[in-house]
């Protein structure tokens, strides 16, 4: 009797196993989806940060987009030149030279420099302060100082300094664009680290008001425009650099600035 039970169990379970195994074999043969082996190869060389900087939802999606010709081989900013070359060799194409870019914070009005209109007790978030209260600094173009950009950085390339301003570690920055999107005042831009001259201010108020609100604000005096009128233009009381591929910046422009709003070779960790 007992022997029969064992046999029954073995045969029924074994039978079921065989049945499902054959189903799987059938599915594998008939319903197989061909995956381009290149996609898997590219996925392996990608940094797996899944940051979304390329515009695709994660690294696997980017790999697929490259193989399908939607994305370019050099579009992974995190991987940089090295990864671009590897992907190019997998795809059998020539990689274009990748221009490294880093995040630049265009406001130097920290706690010491800017005038404060009030003490802010609310939620410490830039996007919220910009919408609901306007923060505590008088300048309505300045860095709010609640570190939304630092929170958005996945590569530990940003932190807040003692003066209440975000600082970028240019070696660690992968130009993933997250901080650019996080800043509600659009103070962060991506630029080549080779460009030496930048205007570190976005204040468009007339000089008189700008000077009152911040010690390092652009007051629209146009002194910086004279040495390089081709690349620097005055727009609404603010010196704006028109960046082009060959642009590197002239040192004279920064020397003339009375407020140091435009600066040459500013140490990124200032």
């Amino acid at each position, binding site marked *: 009797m007992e022997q029969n039970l064992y046999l029954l169990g073995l045969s029924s379970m074994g039978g079921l196993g065989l049945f499902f195994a054959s189903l799987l074999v059938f599915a594998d043969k008939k319903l197989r989806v061909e995956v381009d082996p290149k996609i898997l190869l590219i996925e392996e060389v990608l940094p797996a940060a899944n940051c979304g900087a390329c515009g695709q939802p994660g690294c696997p999606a980017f790999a697929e987009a490259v193989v399908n010709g939607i994305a370019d081989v050099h579009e992974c900013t995190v991987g940089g030149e090295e990864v671009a070359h590897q992907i190019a060799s997998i795809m059998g194409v020539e990689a274009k030279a990748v221009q490294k870019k880093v995040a630049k914070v265009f406001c130097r009005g920290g706690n010491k420099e800017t005038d404060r209109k009030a003490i802010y*007790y609310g939620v410490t978030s830039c996007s919220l302060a910009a919408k609901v209260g306007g923060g505590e600094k008088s300048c309505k173009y300045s860095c709010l100082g609640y570190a939304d950009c630092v929170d958005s950085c996945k590569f530990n390339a940003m932190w807040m300094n003692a003066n209440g301003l975000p600082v970028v570690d240019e070696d660690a920055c992968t130009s993933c664009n997250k901080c650019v999107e996080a800043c509600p005042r659009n103070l962060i831009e991506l630029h080549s680290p080779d460009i030496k001259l930048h205007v570190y201010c976005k204040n468009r108020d007339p000089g008189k008001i700008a000077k009152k609100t911040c010690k390092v604000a652009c007051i629209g005096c146009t002194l910086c425009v004279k040495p390089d009128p081709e690349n620097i233009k005055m727009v609404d009381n603010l010196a704006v650099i028109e960046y082009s591929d060959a642009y590197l910046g002239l040192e004279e422009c920064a020397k003339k600035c009375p407020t140091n709003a435009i600066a040459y070779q500013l140490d990124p960790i200032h």
Partner: protein
Amino acid sequence: MGLLTFKSGIHPAYRKNSTEATAICAAKIPKKVVIPLQQHIGAPNKPLVKKGDIVKTGQKIAGSDAFVSSPVHASISGKVKAIASTLHPSGQLITSVTIESDEKDEFFESNPGKREYTDLSSDEIRGIAKDAGIVGLGGAAFPTHVKLSPPKEKKIDAVILNGAECEPYLTADHRLMLEQPEKVVYGLKAVMKSLNVSKGYIGIENNKKDAISAILNMAGKNGADIEVHGLQVKYPQGAEKMLIKAILNREVPAGGLPMDVGVVVQNVGTTVALADSIRDHKPVIERVVTVSGTGVKEPKNLMVRIGTLFSNVIEECGGLNEGARKVIMGGPLMGLAQPSLEIPVVKGTSGIVVLTENEIKAEKARTCIGCGSCVDVCPMFLLPTRIANFSKYDLTEKAEQFGVMDCIECGCCTYVCPSKISLVQWIRYGKGNILEKRKKIKS
């Protein structure tokens, strides 16, 4: 008769005793007023005067052709010094007219002679409300003539007068009801006539017993059908929707207005202004402002000209105490903190509350412990903690689905939160995002 009320809500410390017994006194006429051209909800006004013009008290200085708008009048006589954008109590920069006083305070009279509401048609009453620049003086500043012109398909059968004044510190409406009950009731009758409604209600919180009896004495006269109701002392009893629920047991549908349930709600200050404009041709050039809080030396109820700077008003009250730190326009729960004292009193300024350092100590927000206190107190029966989280992570669709637009921003949830989360701030952020999105879709 038992006291009426609504479900949920909170019981903050009311702190009204410093001003509830002080009679309204007229403030000195300031040397300079700054009158923002936009003091109402609706279309912006255009200035009707130029720099250098001489204006008289009560002269119309700005107006608009749009229906949902309300004109602005000069509150003192003198010379227009400047027309420039200045800081409005709402935090925005708004074009304002600065008038320097000639210290004569001459009145601009266009049509002298007494009028009574009984001789006027409902259209004429509406016209007077519009010309006099009357807006909701409780704080929302919605043009009154718009409220008096409901669309035809909405049948209005009741007018409620709001004398709840549930915000801590404020006593402006209380004193008005106590000192000028005749005008309050007169204004209510005018509103009822213009809406062709025979039933009027006045709701007053039970911590103003003297005001209730003053109004009761007056309401019974001349056979008008006006009921006066004592309300339980609870915040936010003075919010329109809560008031309607308490008095008429009707519920305004989500996204709807009081007119959807056949009700128009007016503040007592608004009816006093309406009575003045009908009988004395006086536009809104002054209002009662409660100046209170531990940061003020002599708390008072002042009749202040529109456009007087906060600094002048506070000077009138003996100045600031040491340690004064936060200036709020309105009550402490729904009022707006101000970054400076060079801000003008506007039609919606029901009070100026100054708090000291140790009263405003803000604790850092901690994690939500899921206690549900905010859900218990929300008078709109929303889930504040969930909505705030949806807003925080920009899940605007979800937030909308959970009724973020129905939030009346009364602040009950933030008041009770044991983790000190600024729920209302997050909710306002979410609302702002949704409004921006809607604007984009429209354009």
